Each structure stands twice: as C-alpha cells, then as structure tokens.
C-alpha cells in the first residue's frame, strides 16, 4: 500500500473512534452528573450520590409534565398508527395518480422547521376557535408522529407479498381472518418500531409544543427547559438519565425486532 492509502485508512479509523466518543459524550456526561454530589456540575464528580434522584422524586413540576407528555405521545401515536397504516395500504395497493406526491406530503412535516409548523398551527387553531392547550397538543402531535408511521409502514408494506393473502383465502380463510393472520404479523415489527420512535419523537418535541402550553399544561421538554433556565441543578440530569434509559430500552427492542442495521436505514 502507498503512504496515502495508509493515511486514508488511519483517518477513517480516527473518525470512527472520534464519532463513537463524541456522540456518546452528552449521554455519559448526563448520567455522570446525575450521580454526582456536586450541585455545580463538576466533572469528574467529587463524590457519588443519589440526592438528585431524591430531589427529582419530590419535584412538583416535572411529574405532571411527564404525565402530560406520556398521554399526548400515546394518543398521537395511536391516531398516527391508525391513519398512517390505512394511508400506507392505499399508497401501496392503490392504482391512482399522485401516490408519490401524497407520500412526500405525509412525510414533509419532518423536513420543515418545527417552529414554523407550530406557529402556523397556533394561528390556524385560533381561527378555528380552539384555545384549549391540552386538546391543541393532542391534535398538533399527530402531525409529529404521522410521518414516522407512514415512512416505516410504507417501506414494510412495499416489501410484503400480497399474493400471500390470496393464498390464505384459497386455503379457506375469510378476508378478515387472512388479514389478521397473515398481514398483521408480517407488519408487526414495523408497527412496533415506528410506533416506538413516533412516541419518542412526540415526547421529545419542543418547537411545536411550546405554542400549545399554558400555566397548567406543559409537556416534559418545555418544563425541563424552563427548569434549566430558572434553577439549573442536576435534578434535570436525573430525569434526563431516565430518558436515556428509555432510549436504551427502545434501542434494545428495536434491535430485537428488526436489527440494528435495519434501524440505521435511511
């Protein structure tokens, strides 16, 4: 090998190691700070302690907002799974014009600035007379979750061999039973992974939620950012570590269902 090839190879491995360390840094720092005794984020921590978790347990702002976030995420994911799956079936099975355009349209909320989408919806909801923060959040978050479901279920459906359903019917299944026993199990992993990532996206959303909060209704990221700005202490690191654990759980489940490499498909 020539020197330049060695150089290229070395560069590649340095970039690889750097990437792993760089990307994991915020997660490690969060967890380390949450178990430290220091209230000013000293790293490495002078001593280990669970005091921030104790403080988190009695926090009066964070738990209600966590509950709000979970409710909104669960509702919007369920609606997105229903609407998204029906639409994906139409796009894969239908023979009408503009299917690509519809697919792009449904995924487009992912590509536009969340803040702009939030402002547009805020004004739209006002015109429609919807002023209640919680209901607005439920409606708005479907726009966040739907693209995830459409993207993944569409990809899974286009790989599904629909003649299997005909085969099941030939073997004596009714149409409904054929769908339940052939199509649904084949799509199971796509449902679960897309639902899971849609749920997390809704839980994490800040730029759209910020326009649909009031003094009583706040989602977790809104409440967390407010907390960071008002009284920054590692209590936020403690709840963040909880969210990191949730992400690890999602990754493990995703790995079991479809495999890490499939999750990395773009």
């Amino acid at each position, binding site marked *: 090998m020539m020197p*330049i090839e060695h150089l*290229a190879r070395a*560069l*590649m491995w*340095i*970039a690889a190691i750097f*990437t792993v360390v*760089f*990307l994991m*840094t*915020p*997660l490690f*720092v969060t967890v380390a*700070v949450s178990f430290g005794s220091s209230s000013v*984020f*000293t*790293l490495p921590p002078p001593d280990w302690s669970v005091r921030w978790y104790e403080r988190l347990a009695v926090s009066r702002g964070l738990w209600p907002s966590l509950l709000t976030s979970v409710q909104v995420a669960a509702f919007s994911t369920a609606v997105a799974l229903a609407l*998204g799956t*029906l*639409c994906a079936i*139409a796009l894969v099975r239908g023979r*009408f*014009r503009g299917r690509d355009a*519809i697919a792009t*349209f*449904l995924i487009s*909320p992912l590509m*536009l*600035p969340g*803040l702009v*989408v939030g*402002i*547009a*919806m805020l*004004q*739209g909801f006002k*015109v429609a007379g919807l002023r209640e923060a919680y209901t607005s959040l439920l409606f708005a978050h*479907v*726009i966040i979750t*739907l693209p995830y479901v459409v993207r993944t279920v569409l990809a899974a459906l286009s790989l599904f061999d629909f003649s299997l359903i005909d085969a099941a019917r030939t073997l004596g299944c009714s149409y409904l039973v054929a769908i339940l026993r052939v199509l649904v199990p084949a799509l199971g992993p796509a449902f679960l992974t897309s639902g899971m990532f849609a749920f*997390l996206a809704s839980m*994490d959303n*800040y*730029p759209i939620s*910020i326009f649909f909060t009031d003094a009583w209704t706040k989602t977790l*990221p809104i409440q967390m*950012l407010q907390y*960071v700005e008002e009284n920054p202490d590692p209590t*936020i*690191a403690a709840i*963040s570590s909880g*969210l990191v654990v*949730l*992400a690890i759980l*999602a*990754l493990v489940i995703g790995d079991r269902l479809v495999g*890490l490499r499939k999750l*990395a*498909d*773009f």
Partner: protein
Amino acid sequence: MRAWRDPVALLAVPAVAYLLLLYALPLAWLLMKSMIGPAGLTLQPYLDFFVDPFNWRVVWNTLSVAFWVTLVCLLVGYPAAFALARAGAALQIAMLVAIILPLSVGVVVKAFAWQIVLRRDGVVSQVLVALQVWDEPQRLLFTEAGLVLGAANIFLPFMILPIYSVVKLIDPRLLEAGATLGAAPLYRFFNILLPLTLPGVVSGVAFVFSMSVSMYVIPSLLIGDRFQTLSTLTGRSFLFMRNEQLGSTTAVILLTLAVSVVVASGWLARRLGERT
C-alpha cells in the same frame, strides 16, 4: 384510473384530510397573512425586514452557523460513514449504537449536557488543556464555536446515515479494478468513490443544513439571546415580544429557506441519479 374510481384510494383520505386541514391549510394561511396588508397584497413586511441592518445580521448568523455545522459534520461524518461500512462486527455495533441511541434522546437533554461539557471546567476544556492545545481552561459555552460544536454533535447522525446508506452499496471490487488498471489512489478517490457517494453526501448535507437553519432549543441553551438567528427571532417574537408581524415575516423566510434546501437537494439527487 381516476382516484375516485379506485376504492383503495379512499383509505388514504383520513390521513390526507387531517394533514390538509391541520397542517397545509395553516401553513398557507401563514404565508398569505404575511403578504396581505391593509391595502391588499404587499411585500412591505419583507422590505421593512431587509432594510434593517440588524436583520441582515440575523440572516448572516443563521446561514454562517448552519454552514459551519454542516462542514464539521461532513468532515467527521464522511470518513466515519466509510468506517461504519467497513468495520468489523464489534466496532460496527459500537458505532451503530452511538449513532442511533442519541437520536431517541430529546434535544433538550443533549443541549443541556452540552451546557455542562462546554463550561470552563468542562470536558472539552479539560481535554484541550491536557493535550496542550490550550494553555489554560477556557469557556466555550455562549460562544459561536461552542454552538457549532454542540449542534454538530446533535446533527452528526443525519450526515453519517445517508452517506453510509450509499457506501455500503459500493462494490469493493470497483476500487480493485481501478487499482489493477493503474489508477493512483487519489485518482481512484476522485473518480470512483466520490461520484458514487455524492448522492449520500447531498442528502446528508441537506438534512444537516436545514436542521441547523431551523434549530431553536440548541442556540437558546448554548449561546443565549445575544446571538439571534431567524429561528430564535421567530420564537422570541411570538413568545416574548408578542410581535406577530415580525414573527410571521421571519417564519416565512425560514420556511422558504428550508423548502429551497429540500427542493434543491432533491433536484441535485435526481441529476446525480440520472448520471450513474
């Protein structure tokens, strides 16, 4: 066949109707309202906006931060994507975990962590002093360099994954063939590898650039109010200043920027697709 003749098409109606009503219509309304003055159709808000030198500064801030974030992501992400495609099982799993895991952790969590990392006594400062790059600890938090570093960290997966998706399809024998035919390493890179990976680079750059242009939480936490971007100005004018006119104007400019990046990258990707 027409849409209404194909009954399967009806299944798409609920989702499309929902998005039209709650998303497309409000966006169109926002666009229209920003261009309608007391005397009918007008571009006056935009003219007013661009007369003010402060607003030029805001646009410049937005674009220059997005440029630097994209550049850092590309420089790290391009070789990293190759490493991901070529790595052995253990390193590949480590890389995949490091890339996918942060994607499911919220941006508030990561930006908060970077507030800690970028402090004077933070990890970056400690490492740079230990490597003798810096003589004494420095604070990167609330500086533009800190913002670029934090944002590049959060968006890096969106650069690596699209490039990886094209790199893993490249047949390694192509390079061997090139070598056998006597092509020098640099020639092989510029004439074989680079053209084959360009579609991935285009979509990675488009993702990272448009996300950097529209980021809101990251600058709020890592640089604060003294450095305004289109996105933070939009948020502030709605949430704090109650200046909806200014907010709508900047929102539409932001939207135009984001849409042009998507459209331009789509066009480029198609051109590149036709060529190969």
